[in-house]
């Protein structure tokens, strides 16, 4: 094996950063496995929590929004399915976002004791929410069968929207994970943002309710709107509302934020140890 030469210097960008990151993919896998297997240790119900939570949320929402507030689903779509599809992708996004934001501080003991590409921490933080997402999808399929609902060819777009949700979680989470090292306020802020987001996004209602209103053009600037609409649209056979313009915002804002966050993270990562 050729001996590699490393030069350590103040402020010098790592020359082999991306190559090192690629070489650490085994570590990424192991760190992800760690988070997954630790997740439900010492719980009586174990992984079924990933089913219970979205199911309970769906039932509550069906009751509150459909029966009390009399919100309607898109034509031809059962309301519970519409809600469940929204919850599925939103939960994935918000869990990933929350985990990523606290990923560096949660691994403080590693950061100060061993070197590895720091990006592995936010990357591995996605794993748990991805598994949860897959479990919720199983729940969705069961409920869909109950309503005798068969998805059509639109389904092939679904992975794209999942990827987009993941990128968005990364774009916003990465930034906060670096801030969190210095300012633990982030821990207070994130649950609050997630709570607001839940209502600002078309989860319990269809975005059709917003269409045509004067505030629609501001509403769709929320990058999550396009992602949730798109996910639901692909899952429910194109019968739900999808404003193509909101997708443009989703992709655009996600990519801009992602590049900024990456830049910011790399700028800060060398001083994590001094601040943590």
């Amino acid at each position: 094996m050729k001996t590699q030469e490393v030069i350590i210097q103040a402020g010098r960008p790592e020359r082999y950063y991306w190559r090192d990151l690629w070489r650490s993919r085994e570590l990424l896998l192991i760190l992800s496995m760690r988070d997954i297997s630790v997740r439900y240790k010492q719980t009586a119900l174990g992984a079924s929590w990933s089913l219970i939570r979205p199911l309970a949320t769906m039932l509550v929402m069906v009751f509150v929004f459909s029966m009390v507030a009399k919100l309607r689903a898109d034509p031809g779509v059962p309301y519970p399915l519409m809600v469940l599809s929204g919850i599925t992708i939103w939960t994935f996004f918000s869990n990933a976002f929350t985990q990523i934001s606290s990923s560096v501080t949660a691994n403080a003991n590693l950061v100060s004791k061993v070197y590895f590409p720091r990006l592995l921490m936010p990357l591995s933080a996605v794993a748990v929410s991805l598994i949860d997402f897959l479990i919720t999808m199983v729940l969705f399929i069961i409920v869909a069968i109950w309503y005798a609902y068969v998805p059509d060819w639109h389904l092939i777009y679904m992975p794209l929207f999942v990827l987009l949700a993941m990128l968005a979680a990364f774009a916003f989470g990465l930034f906060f994970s670096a801030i969190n090292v210095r300012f633990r306020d982030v821990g207070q802020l994130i649950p609050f943002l997630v709570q607001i987001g839940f209502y600002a996004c078309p989860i319990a209602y269809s975005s059709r309710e917003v269409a045509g209103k004067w505030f629609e053009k501001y509403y769709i600037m929320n990058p999550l709107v396009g992602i949730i609409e798109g996910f639901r649209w692909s899952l429910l056979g194109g019968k739900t509302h999808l404003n193509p313009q909101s997708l443009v915002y989703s992709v655009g804002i996600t990519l801009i934020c992602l590049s900024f966050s990456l830049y910011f993270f790399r700028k800060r990562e060398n001083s994590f140890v001094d601040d943590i």
Partner: protein
Amino acid sequence: MSVITVENISKQYIIDHKRGKGSSSIRDAITHTVKGWFAGPKEDTDELTHEEFWALRDVNFSVEQGDRVGIVGHNGAGKSTLLKILSKIIEPTSGSVKIRGRVASLLEVGTGFHPELTGRENIFLNGSLLGMRKDEIKQSFDEIVAFAGVERFLDTPVKRYSSGMYVRLGFAISAHLNPEIMIVDEVLAVGDAEFQKKSLGKMRDNSASGRTILFVSHNLTAVQALCNKTLYFEKGQLIEQGETNQVIASYLSKVARTRLRREWKTPEEAPGNDLVRVHRMELIPDYPDNLTHIDVRTSMRVQFEFWNMMDRANLNLSLHLYSLTGECIFNVGSQSQPYGKGLIQGECVIPGYFLNDGTYTISVMIVKDTVTPLYNMEEGITFDVEDYREGVAWYGKWPGYVRPQFPFRVEALEPIIP
């Protein structure tokens, strides 16, 4: 061929003296910034003082392939900072380091161990954090398990391990790393005797196969046993480097020379008050032949001289000895006697084979009428007691504050005759 070249490495920390500013909350950061906008350019400093602290300053050295380099120095000398820079954990403020070859650094035993995971899972986690590939771990898996002696507990979460098992497993993994350069910080200070011997042996075997080792330890015996070269740091600077025995000898004699005597020529400049002033405080070790440092065998005299400004007073001295962590290990008082104006000397003997190795601080108090402290010379003299052992093949930290040699009789009562 040098595998590590360190050029002019410095690491600076800024210490904020008004606590809560640097790492506090966003709110403070915002108010501070906003205040800065509205206040004049100079006004902003609000009793905030920054202190610069150099953890390392202009360090230069190089390490040849196959060298086993010991790094010695007191707490805060910059040893750990250096290791962290070499391990890429922290960034130097200035200077550069060139490293050729794969580095594994061992700053902690069992880095990243997760208490909920089993021994088996943690081997993979820790191994890959230290830079091993999965197939490498698989290859040496059985060897690691056997080395640590945890076969029966492989599928038990490590939170149920005894601390000894935990440490053994952690070290076993790192001992099977296969890097070209290994950086080790104080890990031998843990584990039981037999295991330490095994670890040290393993490290020596490794270096026989051309591996370079950097080893930080407070335990000079272990450094001497393992390292062929040694670097001596003091206050962030590299004071001396060279052949191990030579550097350690000068380290020890330097420690002995520098801080054992404090003296004030006239009462005006001396610490104290209107009643008493300290003239001299000195620790005089009674070195046996050709020894130039204090070790566990050395007996010492503490001499204390002070000016008494009172016409007639019943005085006595009270000597406290504290450990590095500030615990009082003992307190000895002299007989109270009447003294007139003038210089008074007290001397207390601390016998050899009494203190364990470690860092100690002596304070002396001048007491009137056995109840009223007149002056307390706090943190008078700080000194190190080095380790010494004979006929012991164990390099671990000897436990306890004292290390007496009480009579200890052991004999075979009923020999079994085959």
